[in-house]
């Protein structure tokens, strides 16, 4: 089982960990890493906030009642950090936020709050850079030869910070890189493969060969788009449509290897999980937060785990994070 | 050969708080029509439901056709050769007549239902029984009486050894009753037995061979029909002597309370151009054939049905009832025809059912006064002699007659001036009927007006001061109750056909 059930008599210091949504793909890898790293060191209480901030707040109340030593919080709604911090202050507990970044004022309001994660914008920027590089390297992708990149974009859940940031920065980076773009379509696929496929069906029917680039906020939707394109007779020689995703999930890696996806952006789950537990472990044992660790904090009291662009050239980097 | 087709012995059955049957015995001979008599709530339907596998008896045994049988479900009963016409119509309204007739035993050809055979055999059965209906008609389109005839046809079509008929004639016209009796006689010739439940003693006298009387869930007697007079039957049923079927008239007619002028419903198939006066202190009977739109007339008066033209004048003022709420404000009351569909709140208490129309009078600043509600309910239970364990008993646990009494009580509480009653005594035992007549007369005596729709001509003639006869949506005439005859009423009923 994924979580370690806490024996009530456990000697290990308790840590309350929330996952904003258990069935989020990427978070399941972070979760796995957290559990692996905590093995034998910490007594985790791991809960599913089910994408509901109210529920998460309640779970934190439960943690505090239960007497945990540290909170490790994957916020649902980054704006809600202050409510969590209020609770932590009252109980005098240190908090490690991770993966979803609270705003600066909230972080500044409590000296025992830290953050582990990436910069949301970074994944978009890296994705944008990857598109830019590939576009410049493959002049034939500009099928109509107008010098403008006609793209369709599959957005994640509206309001989700990653969806918003990726959508914004991916395109922005391409534009800043000097490539003219035209948005043919932008709809939300809700992170979902089936929805990604259905949308792509529609767009192929509507725009056909005019689509020169498919940008997806995550790999699941990218794969859906791929399925749709394949069914419509694309992705064979001469009928290639470039698709980029984010997350570098195993299935996407296989498709990159087959040359059917241009690339993806690896969000380093293993190291995020490790950093969370490293910090939590120090805090739970009353040590200084970075004592004996290689991590560094930036001015926002944050440990930044970098994203990495994954293409055919460096697939092994990604595979490594799945233990291959 | 055995003497009895059916022997039910020492049957006990209790519901929470109610002992419905205790040590009841019922023996039915081969090829006989066995009447089951008793007041409302005596346990007749319960006994039959036990026989038909709808209820399980707490104790007792059933011997059928010489063998002891265990009947755990209706399917068991049907397989044994018992079929039943249920008191509360049990039909799937959303499907066609044929689907209802063959439900549970659809004829098959190979894997599939044999539609053709189904329709044809239904036609045969219908023509055999003199029913004139298209088998493919949706059941919801049937009138109550047509639906009842279909139920009877279905029960007969099982070729059972025993057919239970629980108040089969409660909404049949005289003609259909005659038709039913012909059917029963034919069944009898084929050595089929019939258990016949009815509150209409004249019918019992006519059709039954033997009669068993129940009272308060106990067996009272079983005798040949000729050994008992009607009066004796009544006495045994109610446990006291009841000399007259109708109370003595003591009320006298007063001023006009309502004038109806040219009342025409929006729906073109409904009533047209009905005009009459209603007086204080009178009971106005409304007669007519089924389908004559007597119900529609009451609905128009009560604001349940949209009126296209015509006026209603009450005490010299023209009023309009656009909704029942408005009608209630104008001091109307309506006891509807279909108790279960439009009368009771089955899952709610007697207390609730009794007071729902009168809540306005329990308000003390915005809140309801519980004590007043309790008092009113107690009054209804007492005045109407409702047989119930408590005020909080769910009304659906009462027998049909007692439910009806609660509903009448509900309206009495609103102190109406004009009391509209649509078949108020349907399915009600003689004792209770008498009480309801008495009630109506008391209302009249208090200067109220009562309009009563009824399909039982003797009742109308016995109770009404004047009789308004409807025919095909029109007013055919108004007769004086003193001198009206059945023939005269029937003649008027057919006036506009």
């Amino acid at each position, binding site marked *: 089982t994924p*979580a370690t059930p806490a024996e009530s008599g456990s000697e290990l210091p308790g840590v309350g960990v929330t996952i904003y949504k258990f069935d989020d793909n990427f978070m399941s890898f972070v979760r796995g890493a957290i559990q692996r790293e905590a093995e034998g060191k910490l007594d985790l209480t791991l809960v599913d906030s089910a*994408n509901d901030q109210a529920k998460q707040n309640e779970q934190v109340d439960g943690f505090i*009642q239960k007497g945990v030593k540290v909170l490790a919080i994957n916020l649902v709604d980054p*704006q809600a950090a202050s409510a969590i911090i209020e609770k932590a202050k009252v109980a005098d507990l240190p908090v490690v936020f991770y993966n979803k970044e609270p705003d600066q004022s909230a972080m500044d309001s409590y000296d025992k709050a830290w953050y582990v994660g990436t910069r949301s914008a970074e994944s978009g920027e890296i994705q944008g850079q990857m598109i830019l590089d590939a576009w410049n390297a493959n002049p034939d992708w500009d099928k109509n030869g107008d010098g403008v990149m006609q793209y369709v974009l599959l957005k994640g859940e509206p309001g989700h910070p990653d969806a918003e940031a990726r959508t914004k920065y991916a395109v922005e980076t391409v534009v800043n890189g000097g490539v003219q773009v035209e948005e043919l379509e932008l709809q939300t696929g809700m992170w979902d493969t089936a929805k990604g496929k259905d949308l792509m069906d529609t767009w192929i029917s509507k725009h056909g060969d005019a689509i020169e680039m498919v940008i997806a906020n995550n790999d699941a939707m990218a794969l859906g788009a791929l399925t749709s394109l394949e069914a419509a007779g694309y992705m064979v020689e001469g009928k290639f449509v470039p698709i980029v995703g984010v997350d570098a999930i195993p299935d996407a890696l296989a498709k990159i290897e087959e040359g059917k996806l241009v690339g993806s952006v690896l969000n380093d789950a293993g190291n995020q999980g490790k950093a969370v537990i490293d910090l939590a472990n120090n805090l739970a044992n009353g040590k200084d937060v970075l004592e004996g660790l290689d991590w560094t904090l930036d001015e926002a009291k944050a440990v930044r785990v970098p994203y990495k662009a994954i293409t055919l050239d460096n697939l092994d980097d990604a595979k490594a994070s799945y233990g291959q | 050969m055995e003497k009895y087709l059916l022997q039910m012995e020492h049957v006990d059955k209790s519901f929470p708080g109610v002992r419905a049957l205790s040590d009841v015995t019922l023996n039915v001979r081969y090829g006989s029509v066995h009447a089951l008599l008793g007041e409302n709530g005596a346990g007749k339907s319960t006994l039959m439901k036990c026989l038909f596998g709808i209820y399980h008896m707490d104790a007792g045994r059933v011997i059928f056709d010489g063998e002891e049988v265990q009947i755990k479900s209706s399917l068991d009963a049907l397989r044994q050769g018992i079929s039943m016409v249920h008191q509360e119509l049990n039909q799937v309204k959303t499907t066609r007549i044929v689907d209802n007739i063959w439900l549970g035993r659809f004829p098959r050809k190979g894997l599939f239902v044999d539609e053709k055979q189904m329709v044809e055999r239904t036609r045969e059965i219908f023509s055999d029984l003199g029913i004139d209906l298209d088998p493919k008609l949706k059941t919801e389109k049937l009138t109550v009486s047509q639906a009842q005839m279909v139920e009877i046809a279905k029960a007969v079509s099982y070729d059972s050894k025993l057919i239970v008929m629980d108040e089969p004639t409660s909404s049949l016209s005289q003609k259909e009753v005659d038709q039913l009796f012909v059917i029963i006689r034919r069944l009898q010739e084929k050595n089929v037995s019939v258990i016949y439940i009815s509150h209409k003693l004249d019918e019992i006298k006519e059709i039954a061979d033997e009669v068993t009387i129940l009272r308060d869930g106990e067996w009272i007697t079983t005798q040949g029909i000729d050994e008992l007079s009607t009066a004796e039957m009544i006495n045994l049923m109610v446990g*006291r002597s009841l000399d007259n079927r109708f109370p003595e008239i003591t009320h006298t007619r007063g001023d006009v309370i309502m004038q109806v002028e040219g009342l025409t419903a929006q729906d073109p198939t409904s009533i047209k151009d009905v005009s009459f006066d209603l007086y204080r202190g009178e009971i106005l009977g409304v007669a007519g054939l089924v389908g004559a739109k007597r119900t529609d007339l009451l609905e128009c008066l009560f604001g349940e049905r949209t009126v296209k033209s015509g006026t209603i004048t009450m005490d010299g003022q023209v009023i309009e009832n656009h*909704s029942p709420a408005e009608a209630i404000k104008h001091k109307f009351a309506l006891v509807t025809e279909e108790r279960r569909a439009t009368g009771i*709140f089955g899952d*709610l208490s007697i207390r609730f059912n009794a007071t729902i129309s009168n809540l306005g009078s329990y308000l003390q600043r*915005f809140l309801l006064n519980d004590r007043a509600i309790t008092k009113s309910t107690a009054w209804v239970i007492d005045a109407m002699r409702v047989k119930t364990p408590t005020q909080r008993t769910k009304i659906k646990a009462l027998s049909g007659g007692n439910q009806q009494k609660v509903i009448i009580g509900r309206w009495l509480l609103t102190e109406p001036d004009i009391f509209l009653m649509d078949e108020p005594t349907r399915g009600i035992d003689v004792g209770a009927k008498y009480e309801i007549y008495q009630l109506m007369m008391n209302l009249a005596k208090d200067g109220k007006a009562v309009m009563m729709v009824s399909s039982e001509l003797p009742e109308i003639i016995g109770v009404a001061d004047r009789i308004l006869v409807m025919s095909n949506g029109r007013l055919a005439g108004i007769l004086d109750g003193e001198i009206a005859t059945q023939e005269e009423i029937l003649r008027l009923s057919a006036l506009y056909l």
Partner: protein
Amino acid sequence: MNLLRKLQRKQVEEINRPGKRGIVQFLMDYVIYLVLFILFIVIVAINPAFLSWGNFGNILQQSSTRIIFALGVGGIIVAKGTDLSLGRQVGLAAVISASLLQNVGYTYRMYPNLPQLPVILPILLVMLVTMLVSMVNGFVVAKLKVDAFIATLGMMIIAYGLTSIYFDRPPLGASPIGSLDPRFTILATGRLNLGFIRIPYIIIIAAVTVVLLWIIWNKTRFGKNIFAVGGNLEAARVSGVNVTRTLITVFALAGLLYGMGGALEAARVGSATNNTGNGYELDAISACIVGGLSFNGGIGSISGIVTGVLIFQVIAYGLNFISVTPYLQNVIKGLIIIIAVAIDSQKYATKK
């Protein structure tokens, strides 16, 4: 007459005597309270630390807004309807109230130039908004005769769209509306100091709502009319109940409660997004059914609803407390719902 009278009296007396099945019946009537109790015991048995005032307080506090929502939809269920738009209406209320009650000092306000408003104003406003939305539901159900499931399903989708359109605008785009005015958040997080005990305001608000709703359901004409309409719509109409008005009012009342609860939810969480409230309808409806309401209408009590909500909250809180893994929690939660309702249903299963 005298004989009959006596006979009748005897009957009544006999019937009044409690039967042998008295105790079973009694237990059956209170079976959900029993379920709640057993749940409690089981969790305590697994982890005795569960038995603390702190946990108790947490559960009550967490139930507060849920009780408010359940009371809203509960009325609709009694009237034989249902309301799938609950969650999205809560979201609508949360987003609007949050947007109007952000810290004046906060840079990224939705309305940068909005002066500080009296807290009550936005709350009343969102109550009005959700009341109107719910009245549309009521109208569609009562007047256009659309089944409540489908009418409110449609509204659920519409309300989400509207909330999102309101929410996802420049300058902020789809970012959560946070940094709420402390005068607002205190409503949900503050406590009333009674000296010996400090009671969270939000529990007080919920308690007052419960009492008010109890009075409405049991002591007013409107309350009785809800039961009448749910119990038998046709009979209600004939009995002089204005069915349309009753239905629209019961929806309106629900809307008021959603609005209030939605604002409190924003205050409690400290922020709101267009996703706030998503799925709350299923929790609220299940709590009502577990609490003894029936989709057949005309049945239910306030205490049942409150108990239903508490059962759900004890499950959610308790399972986390004893560290059951989330996926397994789902399995257990589903089983408890089914079992609780199955036991409860036996009381209506006519003994045959």
